[in-house]
């Protein structure tokens, strides 16, 4: 009797999975433990393990299709066995060609770990993502913390325990749920960037003891993909950098006015919200930046889907504010807050972090004056936003105190030349220094 293998539920939020590719073809002999296919879920790309010996008799789900959890993928049985008549997979929705190469369009995505080096035996979670990624090693977690983690949809393998022997306790789960812990150097790009609020280091000034524990930490799925994508970007894309300093005074003043007026409505706009809006508007004025290099053609994008980098535990992700050119600052603010929170909770669906046409990375709230970001392919540019610094500026031949913010645009020279990049930054400067334009 042939065994029908269904789409497994590989994460707590998974309802459908994309069959990325088959690793075996019909007729191949398979053994229990062999990997049959790669499946992309909302969180990761994982391998589909076979639990039977025999041969792969029939494939029901073509590569590239999206299959509901529980729907049949393939049949494994004795060679020559008659394959049962299984209906076609539920709603086999062939994905659009644009999305067929998620690696090419995703901003940062979780995917399969690159092959581990032999010295570091790493076993990937295959069929049961709730199992820790180092099988055989139990997670130490209190009963209450375990229950809370399940309720809040938090993966305990990603929570650092503060209890005795590293036990995860309630406080750790609550902190993870609120995004308060995670990496100690957590950046929140959705947070406001008050010019007066000096960056406060999170680590104690008087910390003692060893720097950290000697250990070999296996590369997580996310770190793996970040490493792979950024090496690709930096080696394949001819980056060049343009830098401009803008007067942030009017923007900070406008933000202050709006936040004071709207405080009772619970509205709090961040500097970053205005920057996202300004980028969308600048892309409207200089659409040549809103393009992607595709080898033999340059794809022009009709909409400004502006993504922004959010630091999360063990990495970062770039959720996308779609059609930012059509949205108000308020709408962008609401959406960005929601995306950032879900990013920290690891609740983003692929749709939330793919398809961006331009990216913003803001380290202003971390006290960074200026920096150069690595382009997030297939975008043609990324904007790096520094902190706002009070410094002397010459205005009407007088030295006065200015509020200066540094913007650095990293640009793909295959798509955008220096003059075009300069036009973009000039448009951006105009918008940020006359921020009322962002409100009309």
């Amino acid at each position, binding site marked *: 009797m042939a065994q029908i293998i269904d789409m497994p539920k590989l994460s707590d939020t998974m309802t459908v999975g994309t069959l990325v590719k088959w690793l075996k073809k019909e007729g191949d002999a398979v053994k229990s433990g062999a990997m049959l296919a790669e499946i992309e879920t909302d969180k990761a790309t994982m391998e589909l393990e076979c639990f039977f010996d025999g041969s792969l008799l029939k494939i029901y789900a073509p590569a590239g299709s999206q299959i509901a959890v529980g729907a049949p993928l393939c049949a494994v049985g004795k060679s020559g066995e008659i394959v049962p008549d299984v209906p076609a997979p539920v709603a086999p929705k062939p994905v659009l060609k644009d999305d067929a190469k998620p690696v090419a369009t995703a901003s940062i995505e979780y995917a399969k770990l690159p092959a581990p080096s032999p010295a570091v035996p790493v076993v990937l979670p295959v069929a049961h993502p709730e199992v820790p990624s180092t099988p055989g090693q139990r997670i130490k977690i*209190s*009963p*209450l913390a375990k*229950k809370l983690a399940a309720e809040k949809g938090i993966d305990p393998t990603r929570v650092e325990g503060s209890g005795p022997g590293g036990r995860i*306790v*309630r406080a750790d789960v609550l902190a993870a749920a609120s995004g308060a812990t995670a990496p100690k150097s957590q950046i929140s790009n959705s947070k406001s960037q008050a010019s007066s609020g000096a960056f406060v280091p999170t680590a104690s000034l008087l910390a003692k003891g060893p720097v950290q524990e000697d250990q070999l930490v296996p590369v997580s799925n996310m770190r793996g993909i970040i490493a792979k994508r950024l090496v690709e970007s930096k080696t394949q894309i001819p980056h060049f950098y343009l830098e401009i300093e803008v007067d942030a005074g009017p923007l900070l003043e406008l933000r202050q006015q709006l936040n004071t007026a709207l405080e009772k409505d619970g509205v709090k706009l961040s500097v970053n919200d205005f920057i996202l809006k300004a980028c969308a508007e600048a892309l409207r004025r200089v659409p040549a930046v809103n393009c992607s290099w595709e080898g033999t053609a340059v794809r022009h994008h009709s909409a400004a889907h502006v993504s922004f980098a959010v630091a999360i535990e063990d990495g970062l992700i770039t959720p996308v504010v779609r059609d930012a050119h059509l949205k108000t600052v308020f709408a962008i603010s609401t959406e960005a807050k929601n995306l950032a929170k879900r990013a920290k909770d690891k609740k983003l669906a692929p749709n939330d972090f793919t398809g961006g046409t331009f990216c913003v990375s803001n380290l202003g709230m971390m006290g960074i004056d200026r920096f150069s970001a690595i382009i997030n392919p297939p975008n043609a540019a990324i904007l790096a936003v520094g902190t706002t610094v009070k410094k002397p500026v010459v205005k009407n031949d007088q030295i006065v105190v200015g509020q200066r913010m540094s913007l650095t645009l990293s640009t793909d020279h295959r798509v955008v030349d220096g003059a075009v990049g300069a036009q973009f930054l000039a448009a951006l400067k105009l918008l940020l220094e006359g921020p009322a334009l962002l409100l009309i």
Partner: protein
Amino acid sequence: MPVITYREAIRHALAEELERDPNVVVMGEEVAQFNGAYKVTEGLLAKFGPQRIVDTPISEAGFIGMGVGASMLGVRPVMELMFWSFYSVAFDQILNNAANLRYMSGGQINVPIVIRGPANGGTNVGATHSHTPENVLANHPGVKVVVPATAYDAKGLLKSAIRDNDPVMFLENTILYGDKGEVPEGEYLIPLGKADVKREGSDLTIVTYGRSVIHSLKAAELLQQEHNRSIEVVDLRTIRPLDIDTVLKSVAKTHRVLIVEEQKPFASVGSQLTYMIQREAFDELDGPIHRLTTIDSPAIYSPPVENEQLPNPSRVVKAALEALA
């Protein structure tokens, strides 16, 4: 509200019940003419006469057995053990006879006896005089076991114990006899089997009873002041029947538990509590249940060492911090 000693509170309970019910009698070694070895029964002979306040020979097996027999015939004896440590001499009378009679008579015979006296260490009286047998007693279906920590509780619980139709073991404490507390004038009862939250808190539940309640409350204050930790102190008051509901409610609030008991650790009241808490509130626990007991040895004769053998505020603070880790 009047402030009286734990000793006086017990005496008031006895006097009120002697007044209320002519079937109530007080018997024991030195309870009458000598006014009680610890002066608990002081003045009762003068007030109620030798028919009600009866000195007995120095034979626990004899006079406890007599009390059990009397109770079967409708008398409500309150028997004083000079030390609960001597209960073992009357083990058969208390735990074989009194505990089983109602069951074995098919409910025809009640044994409304109260056996009371001090059961504690910490007074440099040696290993044979320092037993705390509440766990041994509570192991026997058919008896009730009460260990009051305050004057208020002692009075209200003793009056309920005297009115109860089953054998009630009432374990007092010689060190607490002189402790003063507010006790209202007039009659009040505290039902058996009802724990009391002596201090509200949110970080840790200390489940305790008897003199350890006093240590725990002192420790809770120190933990608040010096460590900013909020401790809830649940006083069981009655060991059996055990008010596990109040304990579980507190555990559901704080998620961490320390049991403090003046008990040897092996098969103690805390052992039973630990089982019940983990069984009923597993998913509420944010750490293992911790326990602070008397250190497992016969009562140590050296006073400074005995003090460290028993629970005390500094040991409770240390154990609480471990439970909070």
